[in-house]
């Protein structure tokens, strides 16, 4: 799968949309747990997109893609858990 300009643009629009969504979520009257969960979900999706497409790690050795994804997942989960507790 070769990276294309179209793919990049699509990812960019997705990131913008997710950013606006997460900012919008903050102004809704959601329960804290739900807000944390939803916002962190957008963060996770965004970072995975950045890792795979912008950083081009989708075609990288599994080790490096895995390391980056694990790090992101770890940060998001750790933040989520400590915020909710």
């Amino acid at each position, binding site marked *: 799968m*070769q*990276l*294309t*300009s179209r793919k*990049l*643009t699509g*990812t*960019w629009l997705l*990131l*913008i949309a997710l*950013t*606006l969504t*997460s*900012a919008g*979520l*903050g102004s809704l009257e959601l329960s*804290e747990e739900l*807000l*944390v969960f939803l*916002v*962190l979900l*957008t*963060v996770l999706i*965004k*970072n995975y997109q*950045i*890792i795979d*497409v*912008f*950083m*081009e*790690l989708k*075609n*990288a*050795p*599994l080790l*490096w893609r895995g*390391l*980056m994804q694990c*790090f*992101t997942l*770890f*940060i*998001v989960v*750790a*933040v989520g858990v*400590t*915020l909710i*507790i």
Partner: protein
Amino acid sequence: MNKSVVGQKRLPGDLAIWIFILAELTVFAALFIVFSVSKSLNVEMFAEGQATLHPLMGLINTLSLITSSFFVAKSVLFASQGQLAKSAQWVWIGIATASIYIVTKFIEYQSLMALGYNLRTNIFYTLYFFITFFHFMHVLMGIVILIVVANKARKGGYESDITGVETGASYWHMVDMVWVVLFPLIYVIK
């Protein structure tokens, strides 16, 4: 030209930068976790503090960094197709986009400090100023790296090997990734 075979797994950029990126993410992870732990220990203080921030500026900064990252990714794409002049051009556009972040961040610091908040006010402001300023310095550092890359690209420095462009870009995407966590953590989740 980049002669990577289609389907072959390859890591873009220099291996050293990836080790460094992991180290950087570790530092930021520690900072974020300290922030969220302190927040759950000082709920009211953090709520009051967060109310003094400017979510709109945070949003603008997120958009500017994401867009800048996008432009830099485009530049790598051009470089891999051998279009180095275009590649350099997009790096410059990426830098210009990121400068929006610098201006907004500067305004935000100014307005907070005018109200008398600083690193020493309380734990919230200590962490807010330190984490965002630490990230701010990363943006500046990233811009310096990108300027070096753009200059070298303009002079045709990457004709045989675009590793340098990829390395600079990877660092820049990391700076973006960190802000993507930082923005909701500090500005959105109240």
